[in-house]
């Protein structure tokens, strides 16, 4: 059996579900942040919000969700367009490079986010 080694969960059904679960988490996070921002914030209230444990958990959850969601999404895009059929013999190299850049970026976002949440 051929297994897709670069997909998120090595299974289409797993990726399909993770894409939806992470989507709901990300959507609730962005709607929540939009509501907070529309209510108006100053430094003290904004900082106080992000010092709460539940807000840090919610933010980290959104950050991990972003990493998973982007991985699944970018994988779908890369495996559709950066292929040997469309790009010729360099297709596989292009796709692997693009996926590596994507993975590195997501890893950077997560570590950067952790530093923002706990480092300041």
């Amino acid at each position, binding site marked *: 059996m051929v297994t897709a080694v670069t997909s998120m969960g090595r299974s289409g059904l797993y990726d399909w579900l993770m894409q939806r679960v992470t*989507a709901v988490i990300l*959507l609730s996070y*962005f709607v929540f942040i939009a509501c907070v921002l529309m209510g108006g914030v100053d*430094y003290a209230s*904004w900082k106080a919000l992000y010092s709460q444990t539940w807000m840090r958990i919610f933010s980290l959850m959104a950050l991990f969700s972003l990493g998973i969601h*982007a991985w699944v*999404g970018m994988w779908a895009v890369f495996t559709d367009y950066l292929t040997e059929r469309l790009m010729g013999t360099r297709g596989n190299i292009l796709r692997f490079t693009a996926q590596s850049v*994507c993975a590195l970026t997501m890893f950077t976002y997560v570590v950067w*986010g952790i530093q923002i949440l706990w480092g*300041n």
Partner: protein
Amino acid sequence: MRLPITAWTSIAHRASGVFLFAGMAVLIWGLDASLASPESFEGLKECLASPLAKLVIWAVTAGLIYHSVAGIKHLIMDFGIGESMEGGVRGARLVIAVSVVLILLAGIWIW
């Protein structure tokens, strides 16, 4: 290219996703500046007062809005709603209409 409306909304969902992948760097950078210190918070506010910064934030917000609305349509379709040919076209039109309204409202809010 002559494509059905459903194809355009699908391509735009992908394109906005790829755009957000990069756009998130702007938002995380903003979060960093907003929390680092009172000075950096004020600096961020000053920076966001410039038209160029407003345009960038509006673009990322627009991507976020479109990707979210199209994503919600996906979730609704996962429940078996609007999967017919007419349902798909109606869904695509609805996604465009709702996104345009929300993106305009976001633009008004940012400016």
